[in-house]
């Protein structure tokens, strides 16, 4: 090694290193997410430091305050114009703050808040050993049916960790539809998925089924995530970037510079197409679209019912939000490639969900298939590829999430000796015994069926209208046919409740605490308001329909 070389090495090394700029984080604009995640961390600390007896109340208080505060922050941001004129990309290009993001965050936070109420319900299960118990197992680590489990129940243990877990999940869901690069997107996906896997396993009754559901959900979720991550890698290989904006520009040809390190792959359309198909597949898994839906009935049935309601509502909102942003912001240049494919997925999802639901005998599985059919209806709005398509999907998601949480909350009320009586035969004649509960459930079913004067009708009308105007008329025809098929099994439950003789050993209807009553009441109120006078909310969704790029 020559002296000059040494010198030059030295001098190079001696040159001042480029300073790494501290990232510029707009805390104010990220406040909703930060509040929720912060509260989740506080929840973990409560588990560690607060005495067992007070934990439930502390957790509930923190969760409710955090969600309410986060919702207030969303409203403040929207009122400050961040949803429209001041929409921007924050946190160094990682997070978008725009109309769809704020609308969906608000929806997720409200749905989360209502779900937390059902999580906290402690009046439905009979008092065990002098302690009021909720839907969750006393000690998650105890083997089902073992002495340890009984001891934990006797000691009055409670899995209050469900609150911080739910908050973490909500935090992830808040980021998911606003993520503006593929890595943030993936991390958000995992942040909200992992707590959900855990929550699924925590049912107090039918624990084995619950654990089986959690394992299935985890395995299949991991499988789907692997595809998603692989897809992200391929997209990076194609575009040389994971930023939504940059990828979009490479796709539509605005950026043509080639990173020398990726010279072999950049601009290779096969990578783009395969990569985007894989990422989309991950999202279709989360929304439960056919053929990636098979986890849905098993997990919905096995998970504790409050968790099912939460998942069915909030996960769908977050995942559809992310799907919209991906298709509208990153891949608009590929519209002619992905639209026919999504078209096919929407058709088989609508028909598949509706058809298989007909032969279901368990109310939770029935609702699971119904949620699959609804995923198909929402996909019809996604396919519109217009601004109206975006806003119709936003409206549908808001309407649907409240109906879903409310419906699952009603399911928690109908009980027999083994816990919730979910077999449909048990629901026969419910309308004679508990007319109010049956009537409320009937309202939710009519909303699912899309009968006028319920939010289901307004939502379905909006997405079908957008789809028809977006040139997908045939899809609307399929949608209406599926709605007709779906109406059969919704109405069948109503007929069962009101026009069948009650069975002698039928279930009882538990009187819930104000928490669940609030959840159900809100569900009914939103369902009727969005059904009777939807204009304000349609306008709101319409104003929120523009993505920042």
């Amino acid at each position, binding site marked *: 090694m020559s002296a000059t070389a040494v010198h030059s090495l030295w001098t190079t090394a001696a040159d001042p290193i480029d300073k790494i700029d501290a990232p510029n984080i707009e805390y104010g604009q990220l406040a909703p997410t930060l509040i929720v995640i912060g509260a989740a961390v506080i929840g973990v600390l409560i588990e560690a430091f607060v005495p067992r007896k007070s934990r439930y109340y502390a957790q509930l208080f923190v969760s409710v305050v955090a969600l309410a505060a986060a919702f207030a922050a969303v409203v403040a941001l929207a009122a400050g114009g961040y949803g429209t004129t001041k929409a921007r990309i924050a946190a160094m290009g990682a997070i978008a703050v725009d109309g769809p993001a704020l609308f969906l965050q608000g929806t997720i936070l409200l749905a989360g808040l209502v779900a937390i109420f059902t999580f906290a319900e402690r009046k439905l299960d009979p008092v065990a050993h002098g302690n009021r118990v909720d839907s969750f197992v006393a000690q998650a680590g105890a083997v089902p049916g073992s002495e340890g489990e009984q001891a934990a129940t006797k000691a009055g243990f409670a899995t209050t960790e469900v609150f911080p877990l739910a908050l973490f999940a909500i935090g992830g869901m808040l980021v998911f539809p606003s993520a503006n690069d593929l890595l943030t997107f993936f991390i958000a996906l995992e942040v909200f998925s992992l707590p959900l896997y855990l929550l699924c396993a925590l049912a107090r009754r039918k624990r084995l089924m619950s654990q089986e559901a959690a394992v299935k959900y985890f395995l*299949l979720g991991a499988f*789907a995530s692997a595809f998603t991550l692989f897809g992200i890698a391929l997209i990076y290989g194609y575009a040389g970037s994971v930023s939504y904006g940059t990828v979009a520009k490479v796709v539509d040809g605005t950026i043509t510079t080639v990173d020398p390190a990726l010279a072999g792959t950049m601009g290779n359309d096969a990578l783009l197409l395969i990569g985007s198909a894989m990422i989309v597949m991950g999202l279709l898994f989360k929304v439960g679209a056919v053929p990636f839906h098979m986890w849905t009935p098993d997990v919905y049935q096995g998970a504790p019912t409050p968790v099912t309601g939460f998942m069915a509502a909030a996960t769908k909102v977050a995942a559809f939000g992310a799907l919209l942003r991906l298709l509208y912001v990153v891949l608009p240049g590929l519209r002619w490639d992905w639209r026919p494919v999504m078209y096919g997925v929407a058709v088989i999802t609508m028909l598949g969900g509706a058809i298989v639901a007909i032969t279901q005998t368990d109310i939770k599985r029935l609702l699971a298939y119904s949620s699959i059919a609804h995923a198909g209806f929402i996909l019809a709005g996604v396919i519109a590829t217009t601004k109206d398509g975006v806003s119709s999907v936003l409206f549908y998601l808001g309407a649907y999430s409240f109906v879903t949480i409310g419906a699952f909350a009603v399911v928690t009320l109908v009980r027999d000796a083994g816990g919730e009586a979910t077999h449909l035969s048990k629901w026969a004649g419910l309308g004679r015994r508990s007319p109010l509960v049956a009537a409320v459930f009937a309202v939710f079913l009519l909303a699912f069926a899309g009968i006028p004067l319920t939010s289901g009708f307004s939502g379905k009308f909006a997405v079908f209208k957008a789809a028809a105007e977006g040139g997908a008329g045939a899809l609307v025809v399929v949608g209406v046919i599926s709605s007709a098929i779906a109406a059969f099994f919704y109405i069948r439950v109503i007929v069962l409740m009101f026009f069948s003789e009650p069975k002698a050993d039928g279930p009882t209807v538990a009187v819930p605490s104000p928490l669940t009553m609030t959840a159900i009441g809100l569900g009914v109120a939103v369902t009727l308001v969005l059904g009777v006078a939807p204009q304000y909310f349609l306008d709101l969704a319409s104003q929120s329909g523009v993505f920042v790029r």
Partner: protein
Amino acid sequence: MIALLVAAPLLGAAVLLCGGRRLDRVGHWLGTALAAVSFVIGLVLFTDMLGKGAEDRTLNQHLFSWIPVEGFQADVAFQLDQLSVTFVLLISGVGTLIHLYSIGYMEHDERRRRFFGYLNLFLAAMLLLVLADNYLLLYVGWEGVGLASYLLIGFWQHKPSAATAAKKAFLVNRVGDMGLSIAIMLMFTTFGTFAFGDVLEATGETGEGKLTAIGLMLLLAACGKSAQVPLQSWLGDAMEGPTPVSALIHAATMVTAGVYLIVRSGEIFNAAPDAQLAVTVVGAVTLLFGAIVGCAKDDIKKALAGSTMSQIGYMILAAGLGPIGYVFAIMHLVTHGFFKAGLFLGAGSVMHGMNDEVDMRKYGGLRKYMPVTFVTFGLGYLAIIGFPGLSGFFSKDKIIEAAFAKGGTEGWILGSVALLGAAITAYYMTRVMIMTFFGEKRWEPDAEGKQPHPHESPKSMTIPMILLAVGSVCAGGFFSIGDRFMHWLEPVTHHDHGDSPLSAATVTGATMVVLVIGVTLAWLQYGRRPVPSVAPRGSLLTRAARRDLLQDDFNHVVLVRGGEHLTRSLVYVDHTLVDGVVNGTAASVGGLSGRLRKLQNGFARSYAVSMFGGVAVLIAATLLMRAV
């Protein structure tokens, strides 16, 4: 003020029908009083109108906007002109008399209060019909009189025949009502409005095809309401109702609504000669049809019903002649209102005295026992056959003259038919008169073995009969002398003299000749020889006429059987094809569901395989899209 005309009887109907038994004792007086109120208001409006010049006698009253939708404006508004005030006076005047008559006639009926409620309802609806200033509101009145007619025909609903007759009238009228509703819809699509003024003004700029369609639909409506061929079958059965109802609704007023409709829509028919020709044909056919049926009936009310049909046929014929005939149609309508109502009330009076017997073969020689009835009925009889100087003479003569004045072959045919009709009228009315009031007593005890004791009816019944008889005698002359009625109506209906191939005197002479022939024939057959108590078998035509010229048989074979076959085959198609498709679809969807459900086997590994397959298809499809 105009609204009060309708409101008074409407109030009466509401009070009487909702008031309950408390009103049983005063209900009939209240109903009669409110009918009289309408008549008095009508008179006031009429005198008020007389005080104005001929051109500004039309009075409009806008009550409220009924259906104020963009592009579809319907108002509740009234129009009182010379035509409608004529009807108002006829309806409320004859109506009041018949209310008065009913007090006596219905005395022993427990449901008398309800009867007066229905009568008031009828008056309100009929007045609404003639006062409406647009077709939609007219339609409301049209349906209202249909309802009242249904309720009153079936008033004695405990008799199955009455209930059936009510149903029949209602159903046959539905066919006509459908015509009116279609006509109104056509008007709306053609003119964009229903108001008489606007519609009739716009006819000038509209194609003849559309106007013909509207005109034919209006004619269908008129056929239903006015019992014209081919929708005539209900009127005979409608005589099942109480006699005052037959007099008021099925002789004097409601059945003339079709004539009103055609005269009111004159501009449309004037511009659609084909529709107008259809109107005259319907009128001519019905006038013979009704007259022939009237000759064969032994039931006094059914004989009169045939006569009503025939006389309305005259009016429709006149209305179909266009401006030559409108005035005479209405004039005959008014005079007919007097004499036919009088005849019906007389028939009711006879029945009242004869234990409700209606078969004329069991009457005979009643003139001594019921002198007032005999005289009033006799004056009505002379009026209807057109005895010189009485009402019918003037109005019918004019129609026959106008029919000849139509000109051409048509004029000759229509004129001859009208003349023939006059002969038959003289024949069957003389037959009724002789069988009822002359000859020997052929009285028989009724079903309960009670021998009839014919007696004169109470004052409340005879006074209306006397007043109507005065109308039967004088109305025609009063209207015709100096062409008073023609000048009165001319601003609304316009008038055209036409030019008749025959002079007025020739026509009158011919009418007199056929009148004498008709009366003589009837006298030869029924006056000279004793009337058999049991009807002889008679000729083929007589037997057919007794069965209303086979109208019901025709309807049964063509419409009922045909309809039954149609519905049966539709039910068959519904059961096999439609239900088969529906049930088959349901079954196949259910089967598919059961099969797809098996894919959901609970194993995470098969779920993963399905996802893997799914993503493979997704990628393949995406790449394929690019390749295509």
